[in-house]
């Protein structure tokens, strides 16, 4: 695209972000501050993820962008188009074809490979921000690996509700050192982060932080021995493809209490349906 550098950002900015990414990889789970730039879309729309993607992207990369698992929602479509225009890279919706996957709040169902990089859009990088609003204090807690506050919060949940009441952005411990926000992915996706073969990068544009998890690194969801971590999912198969092991979205279909549970990962669902798997609602659809 004329008038812009490759992948929109200028080279000076890319160098700065690249240095932060390298530091983040060397210190798994530690939030590295970076000079977040103003992007042609507002904070909260994935500016952190976009800046990280822009800094790592090369002309031979194949980019996939998902928003809550879907390839076809506004955020995903516009970010994919942004990079197709400013970097001229090939884009895809197929998880297996992508070399770089930018995501908002999901991890694809298909296991990622060692030659792939996943970039998370992060609204709030500080896992303890609801418990301790002062950044000065949380920085010190990270320095001392003092995460008692978070354990107390989990304990209070159990005392009050009988279980840990966090369904997304469930805090994790990275490499047994840093408490980290996995971004607002469902807790269902947390186990996928543990020893993932792909490199995981996180960008928070408004909060100006970058962090990372190298491949094969231990990522443990916080829990207690007598209250082990459990991934929660709707107790249904996918209505369209019949999958029982994927994360489901609940779709209200009418005003008479009609519900449809479908895979949140649209590519996963489409691939299964193409392979001949049909769910109960998919059959109804075909009959109509």
């Amino acid at each position, binding site marked *: 695209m004329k008038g812009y*550098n*490759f992948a929109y950002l200028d*080279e*000076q900015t*890319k*160098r*700065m972000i*690249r*240095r*932060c*990414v*390298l*530091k*983040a*990889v*060397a*210190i*798994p789970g*530690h939030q*590295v*501050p970076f000079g977040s730039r103003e992007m042609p879309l507002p904070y909260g729309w994935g500016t952190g993820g976009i800046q990280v993607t822009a*800094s*790592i*992207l*090369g*002309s031979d990369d194949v980019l996939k962008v998902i928003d809550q698992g879907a390839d076809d929602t506004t955020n995903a479509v516009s970010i994919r188009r942004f990079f197709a225009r400013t970097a001229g890279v090939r884009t895809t919706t197929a998880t297996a074809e992508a070399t770089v996957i930018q995501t908002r709040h999901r991890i694809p169902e298909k296991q990622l490979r*060692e030659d792939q990089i996943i970039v998370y859009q992060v609204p709030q990088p500080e896992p303890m921000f609801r418990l301790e609003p002062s950044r000065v204090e949380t*920085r*010190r807690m*990270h*320095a*001392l690996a003092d995460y008692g506050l978070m354990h107390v919060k989990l304990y209070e949940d159990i005392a009050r509700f009988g279980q840990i009441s966090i369904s997304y952005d469930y805090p994790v411990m990275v*490499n047994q*050192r*840093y408490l980290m926000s996995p971004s607002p992915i469902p807790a269902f996706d947390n186990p996928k982060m543990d*020893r993932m*073969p792909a*490199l995981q990068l996180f960008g928070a544009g408004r909060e100006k932080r970058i962090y990372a*998890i*190298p*491949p*094969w*690194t231990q990522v443990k969801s916080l829990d207690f021995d007598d209250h082990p971590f459990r991934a929660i999912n709707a107790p249904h198969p996918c209505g369209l493809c019949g999958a029982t092991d994927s994360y489901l979205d609940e779709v209200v279909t009418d005003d008479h209490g009609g519900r449809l549970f479908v895979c949140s990962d649209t590519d996963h669902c489409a691939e299964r349906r193409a392979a001949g798997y049909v769910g109960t609602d998919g059959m109804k659809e075909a009959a109509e």
Partner: protein
Amino acid sequence: MTDTLTPGFADPVADAQACFRAVLDALAHPGRIRPVPPVEAPAPLCPAAAAVVLTLVDHETPLWVDPAAAAASGWITFHTGAATGEQARAAFAFALTLPDLALLPAGSDEAPDNSATVIVQVQSLERGARFELSGPGLRESAPLAVEGLPTDFADRWAANHALFPRGVDLLLCTGNQVAALPRSVTVRNA
């Protein structure tokens, strides 16, 4: 020696990106050896070290250059605009032999990222002393052979690794190849 400086990357944008991805891949998989795009490097820099310097160093990053490599200082400052200065304040250090890692910034407990990245030129990443690496980025322990590091390297690295999350990160360059040791990795003599 002439006064003419050799050019930097043939394609500054694409080559810097390719070199960064090589370094990123090397750092994310300690011990993995990656080729970088070619650069006409000034003596005594090897092409890989020159490419890494062009990719990562600029006017925001104070650079310490090993006095033995002073001949390349002019080239580095011309292409990167980096201020060369003392070891204790360096964001990047370039050396022909492993410097004393303890003299370089290791960051603080609150900001362990305020630490130096050390670019060391070695003789070979195929021959030489054999090490076994383990840590984040590695599914199982990985081998690395380096010719050109001091004989007590494993001990020196252990002292650096013990500072974690503080510490320095090491980029090993030879010919057009780069390998990396992030501070998180454990190095044993194999």
